[in-house]
Every structure is written in structure tokens, then in C-alpha cells.
């Protein structure tokens, strides 16, 4: 039998590459319009997964984990986030 885990029970190293990539569950994704983003951080605060990252010019979702719920787009006061189908 081919085994993937060195452990006897569902224990794992906490390193991110072994975590669950919840981004695989997504059917739509947020896209930030860079020039419109005022970097207020509301999307960062409201994201239920905590996967919004602050970049130099704007905030954007880490698509490895973003499930595409669209809350960031809904709360964005600048309407800088569009939700597009995958």
C-alpha cells in the first residue's frame, strides 16, 4: 500500500504547503482594480478567512486560500473589487 503520511494519526506539520488549499473550493474570485483601491483595509477586516494581503499599492486576496465569497467586494467603499467567474 502506498502511504502519504509519516504519521499514524491525522497529525501534520503546520507548514503551509501541507495545509488545505481552500482556494480550490472557489468558483469566483475577487479582482482588485489597483488605481481605485484607497487602501482603507475594510476588505482585510471583513474577510472571514483572513486571506487579504496588503501589497504596496493595494489590498488583494491570496488566491490559494480565498473561497470567493465576495464579502470584500460588498464592503469595499471605493467599489474597487470586482467578482469574476473562474
Amino acid at each position: 500500500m502506498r502511504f502519504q503520511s509519516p504519521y499514524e494519526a491525522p497529525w501534520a506539520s503546520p507548514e503551509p504547503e501541507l495545509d488545505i488549499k481552500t482556494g480550490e473550493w472557489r468558483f469566483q474570485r475577487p479582482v482588485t482594480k489597483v488605481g481605485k483601491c484607497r487602501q482603507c483595509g475594510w476588505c482585510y477586516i471583513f474577510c472571514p478567512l483572513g486571506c487579504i494581503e496588503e501589497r504596496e499599492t493595494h489590498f488583494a486576496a491570496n488566491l490559494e486560500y480565498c473561497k470567493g465569497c465576495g464579502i470584500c467586494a460588498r464592503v469595499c467603499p471605493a467599489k474597487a473589487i470586482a467578482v469574476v467567474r473562474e
Partner: protein
Amino acid sequence: MRDDRGKVRVIDGNKAAAYGVLLCRPDVISCFPITPQSALGEALSSFVADGLLDAEIVEPEGENSALSSLIGASVAGGRTFTSTSSQGLSFMYDAYLFTAGNRLPVVMAIAMREQVAPHGVVAGQQDAVLVKDGGWIQLYAESCQEILDTIIMAYRLAEDPEVLLPVNVCYEGFYLSYQSQRVEIPRQDEVDRFLAPVGGGGRLRLCPENPMTFSSYTVPGSLYTEYRVKHCAALQRAKGKWDAIDEEFKGVFGRGYGGQIEEYRSEDAEVLIVSMGCATGTARGVIDRERERGGSVGLLKIKMFRPFPVERLLKALRGKKAVGVIDRNVSYAWSCGHGYLEIRSLLSDIEGAPPRVLNFIAGLGGDDVTPAHVERAVEMTCAAAEGRSVKPVTWLSLE
């Protein structure tokens, strides 16, 4: 409480269990009171209060919390103990499965009691037998001495690095929990030496120095399947380990229980009676009398019900003409007892002609399993061995 370690005392099953636990020096204990197990938790609290035992007592608000708190303690590497009965065990069900699936070597005593409904604060085996596929190891005791000894051996098995599984030590409530018998209580240094091979902190544990994700969400399905396979394999390994632990225990303490099953006057017998739990004592007496009368009858005691001692039973049942299984529990769907159901599953793998197998349900709802019941079981099983037509399942107390 008086320290009776190293002495011979007349104590009941709950007290015997408490001494077994005391001698194993657990780190964390969490018991929620329920009849007939409450006195066990009380005795352990007394041991701690009187300075005989250095353990953390967690007072939970229910059985689910009792076992859940031990899950945390066990994940952190601690040796843990809990006990319960009947509905208390049902209320633990979620945590019960969680403990096994995460391979945590918790030891839990079950002072077995009938399971609702009808309501019954009386002896039975239904509570423990109902969770037979929960992934735990289950060991059944016949006497107060055996309860104490089994708890010590249970820690040795649970914490074995090649096993790492939780263990139930099951004994009939009322009959054993409250009946006082002669019990030899081992010395602390003897038990320390016996348990020295385990508990050294070698197992995986959650600690800040080595961060791990515990009970991680397991995807994909193939990884999930892998943990199921590993769990099954560990249960299979536990069988041989248990035989070896029992043998070693006998060498040190002078008392052995045959390992997975005890074969009593069975080798040359044509007919076997199979029993599990405290009614085995009654059956032993009946078998002795039958033997004096020239009957070719022997006894098999199932000590390890989970995992099921398949290989040992296949050997023990080979060449027998008929087997009568006495059950103090019921499988509704099959209208018979669980022991019978399990032994029936072995039949096609027995070398040569398989024996006829009959089922006798007795001792439900706190009833005695009397010598007359066992004699009737022997009589009907012998009739089946002679080729006479006998109904497969008999409810002895309703005859």
C-alpha cells in the same frame, strides 16, 4: 484513604479499578458520576486528596467534557483515565470516536449497565457492546482482581508505540462494581517496573517546541483511507501484543488470563460454551460438574472483544461439534447476541467441518446468569452436537 498497596484486601470492583489506576500513576483523571461507576471516581479523588496520587483531577459538567478534557491531556502527552456507564457512555459518543481516530491511548473503565430503553439501573453489557465499532480496544473482566490487573495491562497496551489506541476495561456494574472479593494489590515498585517500557514520552505530542496540526482536516480521500487502514492495522497488532503482555504480567505478578481468550478445559472437549464477563465464573463451576459427570464440555472466555480474537478462536473452535454462546447483550437487527454474531462470522474460515453454533441470551436487565441457565445451554448445545434439531437462539430467562 488508607494506602493498601502491596497488601491483600477484600474490596469491590470499583475500588479494585481505583487501585489499578493509582498504581499506574496517571497525570489527568476526569470522571463524571453515574451509577454504578461513581465510587471509582470518588476513590480516585480521595487518593489525590490524601496525597497518595499526584494527578490533576478535572471535574467536568458531563461525560462528553470528561473525555474531551482527556483528549487534550493525552494529546499533550499525559497518561489519562476516565470511567463511565450506560447513558454516560452514550453522552461521550462523539468524544469516544474522536479519541480512537486520533489514536490517543486513554484508558476508560466501563462499569457495564443496561442501556435505555427500557430504563434500567441494573447490570448488563449493552452499553459497552454497542460501541464495539468505535475503534477502541475492549477488554472484559470476570473478577475484581482481574479488573485491577487488566487496568495495569491496559496502559501497557494502549501506550505501546506500535498500538497507540484507547482501551476500555469493561466489568459488569453491580455484580462486580459492588461485590467485594479478595484482591491482591500489587506493590508500586512492581507496577512501575512493569510499565517502564511505555510512558517515557516517546509518542507524538502537541507542544510549543514542536508545533503540529492535530486532528487536521484530512483531504484527499486517499489520505483519509490511509488513516483508516493504519487504525485497523494497529488493532490487529494489539492482539499479539496483548497475549505477550498477559504472559509477562503472569511472570511478574503470578496471575495470567490467557491473553485474548481463556481456554478452560476446552482442548479435548467436543462441545464448548463461550462466555464474556462475570458470568464466566458461574459457567466455570457448571463445566467442572459436567466434566465430573463425564461430559465432553469446555469453556472459552472472550477477554478481548475488540479487536476480535479471530486467529485464536479459529484454532480453539477447530474440530468442535457444537458451540453455545452465552450473551448478556442483544443485536436488535439479528435477534441474537453480539458474541454469537461475531463467532458465526468465523465459521467459514474454520479448518474442517465447522461446529454448530447456538446462542443463549441471559442476564439482561440485571438478571442473574444462573447455573441452571448454563446447564440448559450445555444440554441444548450437546443435543446439537449429537445432530438433533435445536433452535439457534434461546432467551434463557423466558423459557
